């Protein structure tokens, strides 16, 4: 009995360490965001006075609200397209026999590892040439491209776990491969599609490099890029409170996703890596 209790206690202590590890930076930025300007430089972990002024401040300025809208819009469109294209490709990889499958998997892998900076200079020039610089499209295209490997791997792993027999049965009953896909596989794969969608959205939501390179104004700049460019009211004032509040605002949706879809995200992240 004592042995079990001791073990429970020591595991609780270890778990607490892991929790602190993950939460401290988040709590710190949240703490900063609630501090009024007078005490923001006091270096205390817990605010002595609390205020919502920082949030009111950033939500009143176009600089942040338009960036937030851009981030959401660009993220949703890129996610939608990437998941649709990824679903189609993943189904083919998981279920169908066709030439060039290995090449496609290899190319997707290459792109997953591709250094984005290598694309920044040519894309900057190409987007300027096409008149797409500083538009939503300028970001949507690279986001789709770089999230497709993620979507394809996650989805093909999910598709492989759907029982073959169901699809076969559907075909036996006279369904074409396309019908089998639409009516049997797609509904079964919906959870996987949601997971892929979340992972892709997190990827788009997180990007800084493309955003600061391919956009420049409120028309299309995304939240992370806008935050990195925040300046204070004067040259000598650090916009600490605004940055902290903005950082918290863009962190909240991700934390909500993570809390709701924890199990699926873990499954999705690891599916491509070890499933044999």
């Amino acid at each position, binding site marked *: 009995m004592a042995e079990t209790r001791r073990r429970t206690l020591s595991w609780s202590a270890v*778990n607490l360490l892991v929790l602190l590890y993950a939460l401290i930076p988040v709590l710190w930025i949240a703490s900063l965001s609630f501090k009024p300007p007078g005490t923001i430089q006091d270096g205390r972990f817990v605010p002595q006075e609390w205020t919502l002024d920082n949030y009111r401040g950033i939500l009143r300025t176009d600089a942040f609200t338009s960036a937030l809208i851009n981030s959401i819009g660009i993220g949703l469109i890129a996610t939608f397209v990437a998941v649709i294209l990824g679903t189609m490709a993943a189904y083919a990889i998981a279920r169908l026999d066709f030439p060039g*499958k290995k090449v*496609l998997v290899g190319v*997707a892998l*290459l792109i997953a590892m591709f250094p984005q900076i290598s694309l920044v200079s*040519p894309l900057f020039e190409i987007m300027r040439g096409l008149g797409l610089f500083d538009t939503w499209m300028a970001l949507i295209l690279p986001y789709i491209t770089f999230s497709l490997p993620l979507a394809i791997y996650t989805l093909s792993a999910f598709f492989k776990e759907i029982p073959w027999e169901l699809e076969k049965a559907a075909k036996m009953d006279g369904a074409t491969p396309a019908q089998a896909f639409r009516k049997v596989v797609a509904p079964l794969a919906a959870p996987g599609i949601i997971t892929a969608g979340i992972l892709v959205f997190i990827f788009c939501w997180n990007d800084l490099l493309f955003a600061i390179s391919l956009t420049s104004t409120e028309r299309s700049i995304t*939240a992370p890029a806008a935050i990195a460019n925040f300046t204070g009211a004067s040259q000598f004032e650090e916009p600490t409170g605004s940055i902290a509040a903005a950082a918290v605002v863009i962190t909240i949706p991700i934390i909500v996703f993570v809390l709701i879809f924890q199990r699926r995200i873990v499954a999705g992240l690891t599916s491509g890596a*070890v499933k044999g």
Partner: protein
Amino acid sequence: MTAVEPRPSDDTAAPPPRKRKAALSEGKKAERRLGLLLVAPAALVMVAVTAYPVVYAIWLSLQRYDLRFPDDRRFVGLSNYVAVLSDGFWWQAFFVTAILTIVSVAIEFVLGLAIALVMHRTIVGKGLVRTVVLIPYGIVTVAAAYSWYYAWTPGTGYLANLLPDGSAPLTDQIPSLAIIVFAEVWKTTPFMALLLLAGLALVPDDLLKAAQVDGAGSWTRLVRIIVPLMKPAILVALLFRTLDAFRIFDNIYVLTRGSNGTGSVSILGYDNLFKAFNLGIGSAISVLIFLCVALIAFVFIKLFGASAPGSDEGGQ
């Protein structure tokens, strides 16, 4: 394409080859057509947005092309590469990137394995730990980087106040690099831990029990049984993280903007494009970074036989 040919993993039970080389039936033909049709859009987008720009970057890197003097644009052969490679900035950025990559991936691996073991073995609060550990993964890098930036800013930060008076860690090279590693490790260790956790699940419990009965201590079990059995998962995790760390940008951009000799190659490429407006030099740097990454991937796959994720499934 520098073909990183995915090789079948020899560690996992390969599915029996289901090759039936009969003449293609009508159904088979339809299947192939549908397969190609379904992958075509994804393949087209991926190739159009990467392959074409890469080729274009190579073309740009062979030209003198300064956006401040757009009329003076001409073909100069390899002289941009000569300029970059004979310049101290490239090598400084290269070594900074290499050191950041090696140190942070090493720490992440040890810490990630520890967290993976905690998540795997803990008898209380399993779900909670697994959920919370996802927060660093999900949080926007810029937001986390600002958290660290303010934590280490003298006066403002709770961490900076622990240091002796008058120290400003983000203004010196070595402390800045340490903080960058710290921020990078914090953000990406959970990802490493999750990949390793999935590998841990493949280690049979019976084997560990048997070893315990035979008198193997927990360290021996870790080094002699768990790590060797997890080798495929470990190599995939290391490969992914190494290539990811090599392109480090966001954390440095927020924490130091690359000042005081803390710029990575990605920061250097960015600065050449958007501060110096030199598209020719910037493209040469881009191509060099691409070659570095291709080399790392090649070395990993050739030397360690890391099986590419998904490759073992390719023939299914």
